């Protein structure tokens, strides 16, 4: 079942058109990868799913993005609800300069959720989900900035989970990590897709091929091709996709 539907989406930064007539439908509880050369609009597309582009002045958007059958660009959209449902992991691990504990409960604190089993239980569950509990259970109150980059990125994923999101957007989540850490984050994503829909932007084609079920290839703001990953990397329909994945440009 499709959880995200994109209909004829155009996005302009002032005079520059960053997305051109994108149509797309993303399946629930799968990993969908968006690939393409730098500046092709893949991060911009990802950021339309939780309306992070709204932060930039002079952005104009036409078309529709429908998540769970709700048009999220409707003027009455509740942005707070949307962003609880659609969490985001950024390119550089960006924990707050607070303790590990406070990082994880930040979301539920600002939404005034009082968990029945207490904050400690939430922290434990979320750290277990990202496989950090055993490493960190004894230093929950130390600064999150003291962790390794990989641990920080896992923590950033864990920080989303108390809000019970349905969709996790990941914007090149491994580009600041070494290959071993990258592999472990990829394994984590494989585990998370049982419960969450994951959309990942990556400049690393091998990563897309390894972890995703479906892949979209973007070029100059257009979604050139979108299909299941296996077919995409073996028998792409479009000449440009073929040129890109065989390394002729990009």
């Amino acid at each position, binding site marked *: 079942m499709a959880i995200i539907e994109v209909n004829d989406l155009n996005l302009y930064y002032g005079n520059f058109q960053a997305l051109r007539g994108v149509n797309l439908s993303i399946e629930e509880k799968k990993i969908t990868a968006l690939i393409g050369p730098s500046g092709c609009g893949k991060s911009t597309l990802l950021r339309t799913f*939780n309306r*992070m582009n709204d*932060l930039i*002045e002079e952005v104009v958007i036409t078309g529709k993005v429908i998540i769970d059958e709700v048009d999220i660009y409707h003027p009455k959209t509740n*942005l*707070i*609800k*949307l*962003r*609880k449902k659609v*969490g*985001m992991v*950024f390119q*550089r691990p*960006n924990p*707050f*300069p607070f303790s590990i504990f406070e990082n994880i409960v*930040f*979301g539920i*604190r*600002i*939404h005034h959720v009082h968990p029945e089993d207490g904050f400690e239980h939430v922290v434990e569950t979320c750290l277990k989900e990202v496989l950090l509990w055993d490493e960190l259970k004894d230093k929950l109150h130390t*600064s999150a*900035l003291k962790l390794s980059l990989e641990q920080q990125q896992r923590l*950033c994923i864990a*920080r*989303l989970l108390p*809000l019970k999101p349905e969709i996790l957007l990941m914007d090149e989540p491994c580009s600041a990590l070494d290959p071993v850490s990258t592999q472990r984050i990829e394994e984590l994503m494989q585990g998370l897709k049982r419960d969450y829909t994951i959309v990942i932007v990556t400049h690393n084609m091998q990563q897309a091929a390894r972890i995703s079920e479906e892949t979209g290839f973007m070029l100059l703001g257009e979604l050139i091709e979108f299909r299941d990953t296996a077919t995409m990397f073996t028998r792409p329909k479009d000449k440009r996709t073929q040129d890109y994945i065989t390394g002729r440009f990009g």
Partner: protein
Amino acid sequence: MKSIDPRISQKIAFSLLFLATLFVLVPVGLIVLVIIKNGLGAITWEFLTTAPRNGMREGGILPAIVGTSCLVVGAMSVAIPLGVLSAIYLNEYARKNFLTRVIKLAIINLAGIPSVVYGLFGMGLFVIFLKFGASILAGALTLAIMNLPVIITATREALAGVPQSFREVSLSLGASKWQTIRHVVLPNAIPGILTGIILEISRAAGETAPILFTVAAFYLPGLPTSVFDQVMALPMHLYAISTQIPNIGLDVRYATALVLLGLVFGVNSIATIIRAKLRRKKAW
């Protein structure tokens, strides 16, 4: 052209920079030393806790200490909230356009206005037009207005120094803009804001011109009972005993200067310790 050996140019550069620092430090150190050396002997319990007597030649300076303390507390309790809130508005909410740039420039220029102009403005607005008379209220408000530009500018700089990514993450977790400011941006900006506040406490305590027309009394041995009372103030008192009263001991003048210095130093130390504590927590 023959170029200089980089090892020599390095030595020259180092010497120049070191000398420049020395030239800055030596006068400051001398001033403090001279004041301590000449004034420390005259500081007694009586000097700190009684009113002046015998045409201010004898007795203490308690009314001036109390007066200056009232003015600093009054000025800060107006300038800090107003300055910090408006800086938050300008940095976080106002659109980045021509108008906000003009406002920013105007605020920076306000910081450069001579303090006597603030004094005249305060007299015109608070003492005469709003009929507060020469009073703690008028003096503190005048000092507050003088303090605002620096507090606003320092706060803006501190807010701008908080990485944009913190704001992004917070918003992406569904926090509102105000929650983001309150829980993420402000806690990380407080050390920078305190720097501005520290600077302005010293100015509020030390400036003479703004209080000259708005609050300071030449001789008023009693302590104030309401915000509409006039008070003595340390800088004004120092000016008075140094220039207006013959046959007064040199040590009394130096002691008064030392008390003023000590007061400013004490308040600043507290703020500096708080700032150091907060800074240790952040490390991005």
